[in-house]
């Protein structure tokens, strides 16, 4: 498995602020708040940097323990891929490094999951159509 990733667009959309990234999975209705060092980790991972490259950049900027930062990045990547927010980046798709604001002090990544909107995405089976071909309520339901 590649250790380079990209955002799982178009199902996943995200917006960044200085201290938080809001990520929404439009397919399953979950949304996520990334804070603290999860913010630069998200940006660097989404650009296609390897996990080790992300950890090295953040450890260097914050003087944190490289082993600790690497473990945190790996844990975050596990969460992000499990939630289908990041997917494997094809080998043909080059990384797109760009300037990312890095913190001077290290704070463990925060990754909060919200599922309170998922019921909005429930689907209805189409059991019946009327004579003109448009879906109608099943006759057993009144």
């Amino acid at each position, binding site marked *: 498995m590649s250790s380079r990733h990209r955002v799982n667009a178009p199902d996943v959309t995200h*917006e960044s602020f200085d201290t938080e990234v809001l990520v929404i999975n439009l397919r399953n209705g979950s949304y996520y*708040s990334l804070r603290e060092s999860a913010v630069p980790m998200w940006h660097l991972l989404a650009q296609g940097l390897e996990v080790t490259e992300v950890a090295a950049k953040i450890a260097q900027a914050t003087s944190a323990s490289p082993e600790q930062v690497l473990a945190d990045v790996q844990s975050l990547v596990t969460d992000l891929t499990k939630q289908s927010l990041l997917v494997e980046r094809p080998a043909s798709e080059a990384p797109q490094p760009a300037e990312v604001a890095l913190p001077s002090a290290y704070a463990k990544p925060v990754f909060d999951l919200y599922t309170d909107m998922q019921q909005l995405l*429930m*689907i209805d089976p*189409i059991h019946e*159509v009327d004579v*003109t071909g*448009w*879906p109608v309520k099943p006759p057993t339901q009144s």
Partner: protein
Amino acid sequence: MSVDSARGSAVHAGELSPEVAARYVDDVARSFEQLHAQLGGPSRCLALGGHSLRFAFAGVKLEPAILSAIAHLPVGSDAPSLTIMGWDGAETQAALPPPPWAWPENLPPHGIFRPCGDDSLRVFVAPWSHLILMYHAATSRAFVWTRNAAELPTYHHASPLLQVFSWWTRERDLNLVHGGCVGDEDGAVLLVGKGGSGKSTTCLLAAEAGLNYLADDYCVAASAPSPVVYSLYRSGKLHRGHLQRFPRLASLAIDPNADEFEKPMIFLGEATGHRVATQLPLRAIVVPRISGLETTSFERTSPAEALRALAPSTLLQLGERQSTALQSLADLVRAVPSYRLNLGSRFETVAPGLRELIGAAAR
């Protein structure tokens, strides 16, 4: 008939060509024109967000179900940027022309279906309400058909054509947002958050206290050239608690088709003693929460928290899937300050708290 026998050889879901979709839309428009020629029916132009909308109905039964909630909008020009045609099957004895596509096994989330697999033609189907909406962006036409307007659930009366307005606004640098909105002479605040956070109660309390009412659930906002919010529906939904808390409003409530999920509603306006504004400068995004304290207070919060309260409920509720939609909502959040409104248990403190907040945000 079963959906399997109806599928036949029709074009597979999502694979209809835009040309065939356009011809089908022409067929639907012709059906409407023929019905209108036979039966007559009202038409009206209303303005929203600097654009004109033309509504035309064949027969008379559907019009009140669609226009009552938006009757407060200003009169629009004769050059509409969207024409909406509608009829009621029971009154006209006319169905929509058969769709030229086959239905998938499951209705997609929100009942929103894209026959061409893109946004050429968007269809909202509510089998439980026997309601169908269609929006064809290329010809700026939309259609609404229902089997019987008298059977439409109350929430369709409260927020008619919601999906059509969502699609149409998105193409015009406007945002249809999930949020309540009230204001005073200094401008308006947009109250955002999931159901149960206190939005609609706050809006009703504000309206009862003499503030301008713009929305309790959905409204239209734009961030540029300056932040502004437009009222879309003058309806207010009444939860069970509201019926006890606002006996005067409860006496004015209507519930065209009540069922266990329904909330009765009220159309606010002069007749109910409320001030309804159609447009105000947007001064702040407000995230209400029940504080457990007696008095209402407010404090600044981050734009990220405001977007977290606004965006998921808006995008997921409306079935939005354009990646630019979140950016557009973020632009709105960045254009004005954000506040947390700590709702007090003494309801008489809510409206003064809001007025103070609007004043602070406007300065």
